[in-house]
């Protein structure tokens, strides 16, 4: 029951206030506000050009907003405005408390070094220095993401697309982050490989009580993984709510169009 009580009483982990971003005269993202709580999975859905990737980049401190702000509650309990963090602090966040799962695993992995080193590197960055312990932990994580430990010394360029994506997830989760950003994590994968990955993500997110912000154009991914969705169109959030509510009882014309475009399972 402890977990439930914290869910109800906890402070938000991340708060976005009136986030906007313009590129010249083009408004890519307009007035987006929300709060994300520990253990909560938020899906941002919409088609390409809707502003969802721009939003994700601002939320993860990779892009400076034209207006508005993002604050994040650090491990010491203090909420900090991302723009006031120094470069070193931001990098430290990324190495420890945050994860970022790219659509293309090649962007999130080092393709030429071994799988074990890919995972172990994150641990060394937070001060681990005992080779045996690093290797054991890396092996554990390969098992958790269902990669044969016999492949630990192989470089991810020898892996299949699905294995690479699972390795990227292991690399991200090994430092026990509290928040993970995911950008179309099942994007380039075959349908059967997607199902397995989603299933794995679902159980890891619940087990580790992770907060996740996931950008996807795939409503099935949103339904399976998220508690809450935000539907974006033309840089604005046009509808938001509980995932099953928005998908089963969509209110806005555009959301109804998106939902009606899903092929029945």
């Amino acid at each position: 029951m402890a977990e439930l009580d914290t869910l109800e009483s906890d402070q938000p982990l991340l708060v976005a206030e009136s986030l906007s971003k313009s590129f010249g005269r083009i408004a890519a993202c307009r007035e987006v506000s929300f709060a994300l709580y520990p253990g909560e999975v938020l899906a941002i859905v919409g088609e390409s050009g809707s502003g969802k990737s721009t939003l994700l980049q601002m939320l993860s401190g990779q892009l400076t907003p034209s207006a508005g702000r993002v604050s994040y509650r650090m491990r010491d309990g203090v909420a900090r405005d991302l723009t006031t963090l120094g470069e070193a602090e931001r990098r430290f966040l990324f190495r420890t408390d945050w994860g970022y799962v790219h659509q293309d695993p090649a962007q999130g992995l080092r393709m030429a070094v071994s799988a074990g080193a890919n995972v172990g590197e994150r641990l060394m960055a937070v001060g681990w220095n005992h080779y045996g312990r690093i290797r054991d932990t890396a092996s554990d994580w390969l098992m958790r993401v269902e990669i044969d430990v016999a492949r630990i010394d192989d470089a991810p360029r020898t892996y299949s697309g699905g294995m690479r994506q699972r390795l990227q997830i292991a690399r991200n989760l090994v430092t026990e982050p509290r928040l993970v950003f995911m950008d179309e994590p099942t994007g380039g994968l075959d349908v059967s490989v997607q199902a397995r990955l989603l299933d794995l993500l679902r159980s890891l997110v619940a087990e580790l009580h992770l907060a996740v912000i996931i950008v996807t154009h795939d409503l099935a991914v949103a339904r399976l993984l998220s508690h809450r969705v935000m539907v974006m169109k033309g840089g604005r959030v046009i509808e938001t709510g509980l995932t099953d509510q928005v998908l089963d009882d969509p209110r806005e014309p555009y959301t109804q169009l998106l939902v009606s475009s899903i092929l029945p399972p």
Partner: protein
Amino acid sequence: MSLAMTAMIDITDARKTFTMHLQGGIELPVVRGVTFHVDPGECVVLSGPSGAGKSSILKMIFGNYRCDSGRIGIRHRGALIDLAVAEPRQVLNVRRVTIGYVSQFLRAVPRVATIDVVAEPLIVNGLARPEAQARAGALLHRLNIPERLWQLPPATFSGGEQQRVNIARGFISDLPILLLDEPTASLDAANRTVAVELIAEKKRQGVAMVAIVHDDEIRHLIADRIVDVTSFAAAA
């Protein structure tokens, strides 16, 4: 106001309309003026022809469908909250500790063993896995799911077996409110009897239930009160 003091569910003047934007914005009235309450230990059966809005009302009580107006009062941890205006986090919390929903079909979770599918609602409420699995096993036994199937995911089971897994998952928890949408539809006589017994046990434990059942015999066995949904028909 003694009603509102004790009721587990207290719905007042709830209204639901679908606006079909892809069909030129036509309005599809579903129900209006929905008003009834359910006390602890009581099973209210919704009656009316198909299309009258019975399932929609269950979905409104579960927070799956939104209401245009009115209130969906739910007693949650001793306080009455209005689910029609609750925050998503609050709705999820209500579903975890207060309201269970037994639908007609199991929304199959790929690759998860049957025993774990059934035990999950207990585990998320903090029960240790071995104890949760023991209770899940006992319930699967009662519902005549052979032990050799327990470690398999239910996705490959027959319709009747899946529904029994679904019933086990719905009835395992100690939630004070249960919503039952045709829980016995594809069961044989023996398993229907088990389902009726499970409902009777929940009543004795003080659980408030709202059910949709088409079988007259079952309705007669479980209903303490019938609410006729045709009176909520939303005339266009």
